[in-house]
């Protein structure tokens, strides 16, 4: 009687060969498609991004609240960059780079003699970062349902702050502006 073992073994070897040749990427997604998925879901904007950064900076400074001049959020990289007024030495400004809720770097900012930090900074607690998801939804609804947020920045000027949100879609780009309370002012197509 002819043994069936060699045939079975050769089939197993063939299956392993095919699996190794075809495999290597089963169940994966490449970076480009992954980023597109993030964009389809709105760009990854959540209130936790700035809140975690603010908490990390407040912990580092040992204060409950602090004044800032500008705050920039880059959702894809989970990166937040904040120009913070030193609560101990208020004439100084430092740039804090925070990634995923951890302060990565603090760099002093060189200021000119004309800079008035009293007018150009505002307490972080007065800006509605906790409404960031609602703001993103409002801006995307006004701009393009298929759009997404690429970056967000808050800038203090004249004792108030303006929040700007950069938006993109396959066919257009725009900037949405909000009050410090998180109310939409306008969406301007670029």
């Amino acid at each position, binding site marked *: 009687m002819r043994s069936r073992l060699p045939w079975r073994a050769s089939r197993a070897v063939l299956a392993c060969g095919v699996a190794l040749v075809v495999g290597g990427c089963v169940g*994966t*997604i490449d*970076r480009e498609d992954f980023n597109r*998925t993030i964009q389809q879901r709105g760009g990854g904007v*959540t209130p936790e991004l700035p809140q975690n950064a603010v908490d990390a900076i407040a912990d580092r400074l040992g204060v409950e609240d602090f004044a800032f001049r500008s705050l920039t959020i880059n959702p894809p990289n989970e990166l937040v960059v904040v120009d913070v007024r030193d609560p101990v030495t208020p004439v100084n400004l430092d740039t804090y780079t925070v990634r995923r809720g951890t302060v990565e770097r603090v760099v002093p900012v060189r200021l000119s003699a004309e800079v008035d930090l009293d007018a150009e900074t505002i307490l972080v607690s007065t800006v509605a970062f906790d409404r960031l998801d609602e703001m993103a939804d409002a801006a995307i609804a006004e701009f393009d349902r298929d759009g997404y947020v690429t970056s967000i920045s808050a800038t203090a000027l004249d004792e108030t702050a303006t929040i700007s949100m950069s938006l993109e879609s396959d066919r257009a780009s725009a900037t949405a502006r909000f009050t410090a309370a998180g109310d939409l002012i306008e969406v301007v197509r670029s």
Partner: protein
Amino acid sequence: MNRPTTPRGACLGVGALVGILLFSASMLTCIVTIGIWPGEAKLTAPLFCPDDKPDPYVVVDSYSRAPGETSYNFSLYCMGSRGEVEEVGFLWPCVVLTAAHGALILVIVGFFVVRGRLRRARRAVGEPGQPVSPLP
């Protein structure tokens, strides 16, 4: 005649078996998870993904270190409904999968060992020297 097993010998035997099991599980993880099906790491998502980011993705990055050479890097990410992501990496999912593969190997080997013993026990019944139940 069988020699009695000493405690030291038993420890060495168990250690060798554990070593073989670890090696086999690691090799299986290398072949299956890294070589053929990196998406298997998504099965570990319930252990690593937070509740607000429940959707797992295994992202593959390819880059060339030298001409004619392409390297691949896999990483498990968890994504939330707004597109927010958290990177888990690939090391801890591989550790968990190695443990799971080890358990799977144990179950399969245990199944065959138990089946073999049952067969031997059945064959032994009725052989000369074995007690036979008296006829009624």
